[in-house]
């Protein structure tokens, strides 16, 4: 065991535990807050791996923006604040989901661990300058396409949220009444 192993293992334990809690807790708001812990400690994992730029972007975008969006969505959909077991799925579905989740983990482990798991590798220095040079050199077209994607996503989100609600008129096809009310 090297120092990085122990450091990474300690942070990874918190990440894994909070990820499991985020998908199993009965409190809707707690799920979002455990997601904050998962994403924050994952940024710590990136830092330990020497990817400081990715870690900072993770903190800014995920912890800063995505989690706020999730909390907003929970509030706007009037999520109950306390424990809400009536919102949880049936135990059969949960057991099946746990089996499939464990199967996914086992599949990933069976592919990744024999191929790469035994290797002891030095981590590369973060080299933000080198990443920036590559980002605006080799990767500049995908980068510009991503800005276009963000613009499209912004307009799409606006268009979807401005969609008129369907009117509960009986006898009239609901999609037609929705269109007319626009």
């Amino acid at each position, binding site marked *: 065991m090297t120092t*990085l192993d122990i450091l*990474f*293992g300690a942070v990874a334990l918190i*990440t*894994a535990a909070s*990820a*499991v809690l*985020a*998908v*199993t807790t009965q409190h809707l708001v707690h*799920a979002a807050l455990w997601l904050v812990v998962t*994403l924050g400690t*994952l940024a710590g*994992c990136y830092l330990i791996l*020497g990817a400081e730029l*990715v870690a900072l972007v993770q903190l800014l*975008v*995920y912890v800063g923006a*995505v989690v706020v*969006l*999730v909390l907003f*969505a*929970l509030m706007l*959909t009037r*999520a109950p604040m306390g424990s809400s077991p009536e*919102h949880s*799925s049936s135990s059969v*579905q949960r057991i*099946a*989901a*746990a089996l*499939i*989740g*464990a199967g*996914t*983990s*086992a599949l*990933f482990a069976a592919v*990744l*661990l024999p191929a*790469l*798991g035994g*290797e*002891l*590798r030095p*981590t*590369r220095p973060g*080299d933000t300058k080198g990443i920036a040079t*590559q*980002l605006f050199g*080799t990767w500049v077209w995908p980068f510009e396409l*991503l800005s276009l*994607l*963000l613009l499209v996503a*912004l307009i799409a*989100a606006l268009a*979807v*949220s401005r*969609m008129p609600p*369907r009117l509960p008129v009986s006898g009239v096809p609901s999609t037609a009444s929705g269109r007319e009310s626009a």
Partner: protein
Amino acid sequence: MIHLWVPLMLVCVLAGAGAYGVMARRNAVLVLIGVELILNAANLLFVTMGSVLYDKLRTGHVLTLFLITIAAAEMGVALAVILALFRDRGHIDLSEPGS
């Protein structure tokens, strides 16, 4: 120096937890949390490989930055869809059929 099985095990756990979250949850926002966990497992795999492989293009780290951007865009659109669903149906329970 790091043994690669440590980050790879975390990738496996995150992907499994995300898959469980997608399938076991009924609230649409909580399903999205599972999707985020799966995306973060992919990110961690990218960063791990980018940190131990000496390629000139820094593919692992750059693709992680791209994936984070795509995930943010996906999240924005998905939450807009969820809000539209809530206004239409009054709930976002995915186990109940739509009208």
